């Protein structure tokens, strides 16, 4: 059963130096507050896992918190590059970073395998691309039809952290809007934290809402506004201006460090 604790307690209890951590949220409900708490606690040598690194991982990579990144699309959506991610890969600044990349379909199916506690998932993909030679994918022959398919290994992060709109006092969580891979990430991980906009007496079930029961979650922590500058549908709005502004903040190393220092995120 999920314990309802403060954000700092939840992060302290789950994220140690060197951990593999998935902070998920596909273009929506990105757990910024939790990622920032990881930085405030000074965690380093992390294996960061996320389909779309987005600004949050640009910040975490830029301060040198990550030793490895597992991902499928590392851009600033609609704006351009993630400059800190690029600097780390292209110039090893502030430290070299190991990269393991997949397609979105590959990453999504890796989470599905992880959530299912299966060793791998099969899919059509990767064949005939250079990705197949550069990442962790194999081929399997379908025992029924003989078709050659791609096999992607299960992803079971040590910790998954996601953000949702609300939880009740037993830690049952509901999110709605774009559901991404949050449910899969929570079920795939060994331990999980869900930050929420608000705690309510009773969940009001919504059509299309995704409910994650409290008995598969370790910690629930209130974090109002905790996905900004991403958003929580119906509660906060995506700060598109900040996504554009980030391009300017992050382009230059010194400017980036000054900004992160101002926010207390240098760890």
């Amino acid at each position, binding site marked *: 059963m999920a314990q309802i604790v403060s954000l700092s307690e939840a992060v302290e209890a789950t994220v140690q130096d060197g951990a593999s951590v998935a902070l998920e949220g*596909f*273009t*929506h409900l990105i757990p910024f507050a939790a990622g920032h708490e990881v930085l405030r606690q000074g965690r380093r040598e992390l294996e960061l896992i996320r*389909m*779309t690194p987005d600004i949050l991982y640009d910040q975490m990579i830029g301060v040198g918190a990550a030793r490895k990144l597992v*991902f*499928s*699309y*590392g*851009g600033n*959506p*609609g*704006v351009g*590059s*993630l400059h800190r*991610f*690029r600097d780390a*890969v*292209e110039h090893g600044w502030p430290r070299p970073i190991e990269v393991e*990349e*997949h*397609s*979105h*379909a590959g990453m*999504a*199916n890796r*989470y*599905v395998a992880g959530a299912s506690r299966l060793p791998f998932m099969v*899919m*059509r*993909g*990767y064949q*005939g*691309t*250079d*990705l197949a030679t*550069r990442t962790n994918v194999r081929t399997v022959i379908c025992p029924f039809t003989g078709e050659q398919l791609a096999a992607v290994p299960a992803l079971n992060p040590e910790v998954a952290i996601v953000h949702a709109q609300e939880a009740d006092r037993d830690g049952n969580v509901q999110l709605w*809007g*774009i*559901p*991404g*891979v949050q*449910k*899969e990430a929570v079920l795939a991980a060994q331990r999980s934290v869900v930050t929420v906009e608000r705690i309510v007496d009773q969940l009001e079930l919504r059509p*299309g809402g*995704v409910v994650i029961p409290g008995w598969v979650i370790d910690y629930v922590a209130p974090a109002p506004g905790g996905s900004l500058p*991403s*958003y929580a*549908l119906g509660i906060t*709005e*995506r700060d*598109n201006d900040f*996504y554009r502004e980030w391009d300017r903040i992050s382009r230059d190393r010194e400017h980036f460090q000054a900004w992160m220092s101002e926010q207390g995120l240098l760890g």
Partner: protein
Amino acid sequence: MSVDYTNGELQTVVAARSLAGKRSCFIGVGRPSTAALLARMVHNPRLVLVYESGTIGAKPHRVPLSIGDGELAQSADLVVSVPEMFNYWIGPGRVQVAFLGAAQIDPHANLNSTVIGDYAHPRTRLPGAGGAPEIATGCAEVVVIAPHSKRTFVQRLDFKTTRGERTTLVITDLGVLEPRDGVLTLTTVHPGVSVDEVRENTGFELAVSESLKVSEPPSTEELNALRELVSR
């Protein structure tokens, strides 16, 4: 009657026309999104827009900045998880057309969106594959929208992210290329663009169709709709 327009506007208009009569289209952000919204306004109000974020049948009023903008989820016919998007919708070919972009494209319409330079020590690290590889093999028709330059149109990709077999059109700011026997061939130039200009901006030996066409300039209706759309 002639109306002033930019070649970028014409590129968007030509991309929108390619969606006339189509059932559904997978789109990313930027020019593809603008073109698909324009298609719904002018050519094909029933076109189903599918965004990678899981929003199927999205009807945004404004061109979204990101594929995750709230308006996409709120206006969609259904919103699905990422695994469902790829396993139930993209993979089995339920989406007819895909609009894709890329940093590099080769004569067989293979695409690179991963790195410029060597993979282990890239000169430019690009965002990566995203959904493109499976979209390009799942959708029946792939339309590539790209700026026409020697940097983009290359003989040899630095990295093959996405396969080009299903590409039917490559729409640039200079014209349109289509595969002929598996090789991209210039079939249409935009008004005022010469074949030599296209050749000078193409990094591989350019095949040119014997029945080269000139694209129809934007109509007043198309141009007004486009400008109204981007001003929202």
